[in-house]
Each structure stands twice: as structure tokens, then as C-alpha cells.
């Protein structure tokens, strides 16, 4: 074991790769960063055993879970950027409804391309609005997006008189809902695509590094020349745009839109992101973790339904499980 003791002589071994040995690398991994994967496997195993006769572990059901969670997974990816930057976006649930409704209406009256652009444009617009108030007027994003959450939800209800809008454009339904590419459902592809792009930008670009630096220590980021406000605006646009895409995915899947779409998704997306190892207060995050967190939330809903719990009981079980998950993943080590 002596070999594995942390060396007290901290001068680097000459000529060695500065990343250190595999062992040194593994020691540096925060245990909280892989708890989410463990939790995923445990919950999967739990339902697989208890719901053996209810078809939980069939490929159809598992694929269903991924398809049903697609909008939340996409929202979660956007939220990773916002939370890592030390901001929050409470408006994403409302943006889902507005983007879906606007897309459905414009789609019906002006065709596919304009419909999609209008839906995504809602996201960009709300994101810019959030970003403007947060950066130019130096208001906390918590309050700004709390306000726009209500504002956007109000617009969604008002403009449609609470009516549902049907989506009959088959191309749209194929691309954003029930279509497949070969054997793979498009909703799975959208999820994977957004996660891959999100992961790359977050982990492998200067922008991603700046997001983390700002969430960690905004004044340190500022004195090193990072354009703090530009990055803050960008993360808010990213999250609202992701939510708008989530809205399109809903509209495609249910072939229509109502003002109720996405209303419960804000909390589920935040839970998914936080379970996935993103710090609620900025400075660290994980896009892949957020996807796994989102799948955990989807698995819970699905498993609890199969267990025969009604929606009230589901809420209780989800809340309890969420508390458990958060305690496991977020507990700060003592003495820090």
C-alpha cells in the first residue's frame, strides 16, 4: 500500500506527464460526480426486479422513457450552462408552452419553416429579454426570470384563449415527434444531438471554460478579461432556446400544443441537472450528468406509474426519492 500513499514530496516527477498516473487521476475524481451513474443503475435494477411482470425492462418501455424525457433532457442541457454560470432561468417551463403554441399556429398558417423558426425565435427572444434585464440592469436572474416566467405564461394563455392548437403538418410531426431514422426514433436523436453538442461546447471550448469561471468567481473572470456580461446573456439565450426546442418536441409528439405544456418541467429539469452533478451555485457542471439525471426522473415517473401509483402518490414518492438523491449527490464534504 505504501506505493499508493500520496507522496509528501510534491515536486513533480521529472519528465512525467503532468496529468499524473491513472491512480492520481482517479484520486482527484470527486465521488459526487459518479454517484448519479450509480443511482441510475440502482433505480434501473430496482424497477427491473420489482416490475419484472409489468414489462419495465422491455426495449419498448425503455425507449419510451427516453422519448418521453426528450423535452426535459433538452431543457436540462441548457440549464447546465445557466446554473454553472451562477445564474438561474425559471422561465423555461413557460417558454416550452409559448414556443409550442407559436410554432403550431405559424405552422398552420405559414408552413413548416416559418413555424419552426417562430417557435425557436420565442426562445431566443425570451432569452435576450432575460439577459438584457440581468446584465444591462444588473438584476438577479432569479427575479428577472421569475417575472418573465409569469409574463410568458400569460402571453401563451392570452393569445390562444386557453385553446389547444392542433398540429397536422406531417413533416413537422415526423421531424419533431414520431418519426424514425432507421430504427432510431427522432426524439432519441434530438436528445443525443443536443447532449453531444452541449457537452462539446461546455467541456471543450473557451466559452464553456468562461461559463465555469464566471460561476466560480465573477470578479476573477472579469479581471482576466473575460466578457462576463456577454457570457451571462449567452447562457440565458441558450437555456431559453433549449426550452423552445423542448416545446417543439412536445408539439411534435402530442401533435398539438396547449398552454399547459411544460408547466411541471421546470422543477424536474432543475432536479435532473442538480442530481447530475451541476452545482446549484455555479462553478461546476456536467451535461452528460444532466442527461442521466433526466433519465432518472423519467424512469421514476414511468416505474411509479407501472407500480400503479396514482398521480398524487407519484408526487409523494418522487419528492421523497428526490430528497434522497440530492442528499447523496449534493452533500458538501464536511469542513469546507
Amino acid at each position, binding site marked *: 500500500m505504501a506505493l499508493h500513499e500520496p507522496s509528501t514530496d510534491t515536486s513533480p516527477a521529472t519528465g512525467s506527464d503532468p496529468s499524473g498516473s491513472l491512480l492520481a487521476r482517479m484520486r482527484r475524481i470527486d465521488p459526487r460526480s459518479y454517484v448519479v451513474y450509480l443511482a441510475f443503475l440502482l433505480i434501473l435494477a430496482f424497477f427491473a426486479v420489482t416490475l419484472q411482470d409489468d414489462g419495465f425492462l422491455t426495449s419498448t418501455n425503455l425507449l419510451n422513457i427516453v422519448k418521453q424525457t426528450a423535452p426535459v433532457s433538452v431543457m436540462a442541457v441548457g440549464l447546465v450552462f445557466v446554473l454553472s454560470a451562477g445564474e438561474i432561468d425559471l422561465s423555461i417551463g413557460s417558454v416550452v408552452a409559448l414556443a409550442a403554441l407559436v410554432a403550431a399556429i405559424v405552422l398552420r398558417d405559414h408552413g413548416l419553416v416559418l413555424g419552426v423558426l417562430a417557435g425557436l425565435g420565442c426562445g431566443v427572444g425570451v432569452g435576450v429579454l432575460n439577459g438584457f434585464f440581468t446584465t444591462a440592469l444588473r438584476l438577479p436572474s432569479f427575479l428577472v426570470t421569475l417575472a418573465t416566467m409569469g409574463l410568458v405564461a400569460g402571453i401563451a394563455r392570452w393569445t390562444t384563449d386557453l385553446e389547444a392548437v392542433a398540429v397536422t403538418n406531417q413533416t413537422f410531426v415526423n421531424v419533431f415527434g414520431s418519426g424514425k431514422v432507421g430504427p432510431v426514433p427522432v426524439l432519441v436523436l434530438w436528445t443525443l444531438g443536443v447532449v453531444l453538442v452541449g457537452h462539446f461546447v461546455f467541456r471543450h471550448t*473557451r466559452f464553456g471554460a468562461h461559463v465555469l469561471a464566471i460561476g466560480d468567481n465573477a470578479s476573477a473572470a472579469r*479581471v482576466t478579461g473575460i466578457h462576463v456580461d456577454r457570457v451571462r446573456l449567452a447562457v440565458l439565450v441558450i437555456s431559453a432556446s433549449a426550452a423552445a426546442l423542448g416545446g417543439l418536441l412536445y408539439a411534435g409528439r402530442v401533435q398539438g400544443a396547449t398552454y399547459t405544456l411544460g408547466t411541471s418541467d421546470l422543477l424536474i429539469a432543475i432536479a435532473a441537472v442538480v442530481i447530475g452533478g451541476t452545482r446549484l451555485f455555479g462553478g461546476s457542471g456536467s451535461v452528460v450528468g444532466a442527461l442521466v439525471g433526466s433519465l432518472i426522473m423519467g424512469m421514476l415517473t414511468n416505474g411509479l406509474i407501472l407500480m400503479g401509483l396514482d398521480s398524487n402518490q407519484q408526487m409523494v414518492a418522487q419528492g421523497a426519492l428526490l430528497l434522497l438523491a440530492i442528499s447523496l449527490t449534493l452533500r458538501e464534504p464536511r469542513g469546507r
Partner: protein
Amino acid sequence: MASVEAPAAPLVRLDRVRKEFGAVVALQEVSLEVGAGEIVALVGDNGAGKSTLVKMIAGVHQPTSGEIVLDGKPVRLANPNDSRRQGIEVVFQDLALADNQPVYMNMFLGRELVRGPLRRLDRARMATETQQLLDDLDVRIPSPRATIRDLSGGQRQGVAIGRATHWAQRLVLMDEPTAALGVQETARVEEIILRMRDRGRAILIVSHSLDQVFRISDRICVLRRGAQVGVRETAGTSGDEIVALITGLR
């Protein structure tokens, strides 16, 4: 006011620099030169104007009148980025480090290295260069991939100074870099400062510790309530004289 011969090529020259904040005169007519490979200490009581002077050279504040001259050319430093572009780096009192990021990311904060057409972060190269740089300065850390919050206060200050050394082509400004450190860590940081000087950087350091000032500086500039009351060669003065200048008592 005693005037002292400056070195042949002053990298940085302050020419009758004055700073007012509204009705408050924070600094009146300070003239000072710092040459390459030279450490100038800035001393004075609380509120004497030391931080204000540092912040003007760092581009945080702009002089009300007077000039900042770099290599013989008057410059206007409208913001911190202007200063950085002129080869001036600051080691802040409250360590401008991002605690949850690795050492190499902090070293390259705002100037990250990228590679390939996708401009991917080049983490390996940033880590290697960080290791080399910290080795050169003999700053000992477990690994360039270690997270800042896992380092001691002295190691953190070492990283902050290493970053300044790496990017400063001309001048490193330090505002009480050892204020929060213990005796041993202070000694380590002083060694690092001396090595940085040996690499030809000009250094302007604010310090409350006269012992430290006498250990490492070449010249001492004393401020009292915004006025420059004297500049002395460290070798040719005494603690008593500096204390008398700081307090204004004989």
C-alpha cells in the same frame, strides 16, 4: 523630497500622477520609476493611497492628471484589458482565482489555449506549460490539474504570482500579496517574487510589513495621506527613517 537616480531604462514611469474621487484627493502628484529587474515597495498607512496608485497602473482607475509612461511613451490605460495588453499584470489582495477550477485553467483564465479546427481547449498543453512555469518559479503544487480549493494559501498565492509572471511582459503589481499568509508561506512567496525579479520583470509591491520591504525591495516609496513623502534606496535607509516618513513624526 529626496530624488534618487533611477535605473537606465525605466519600464514604467509615473509623472506627477494625481487622482481625485469627487472631492476626495486620494493621490497628489506622485512621480515614480520602476525598472526591469527591480522591486519597488510602496508603503504608507491605511488610506495613504497605495491601492489607488496600483489600480491606476492596472487600468482600473484613470489619473485625474499626470501621465503614465511605458518605455518612454505616455499611455492611456482606460481599462484592465489595456493594461494587460501593455504587459502589466496584477496580483490582487483577494486572490483572483476560480476556486473550483483546476490550476492550469486559472493560469490560462481568459487566454485559454485551443487546438484544431474546432478550437478545442488544449488541456494537456495548458497543464504542461503550467507545470513548467511553476517549476521554474519553484512553486510546489501536487499537480497542475489539482483544484484550487485543495491548495494551501501559500500555494494559491504562488499560482496567482505564477500567472502574473507568465503574462506580464513588463510589470507585475502586487497589493499585499502575503497579507493573508503565515510566516513560512510568506517566506516561500518572497522567494518566488525574487525569482520573478531575476527573470527581468519590474515589480511594484504594496506591503504592510517593513521587515518584508527591507528583505526584498530595491527602493521604497512612502505615501502619506495621498502625498509622496519620499523615495529611498533600501540599502541606504533604515526602518526608523521609513517609519518616520510613514507617520510624519520625527
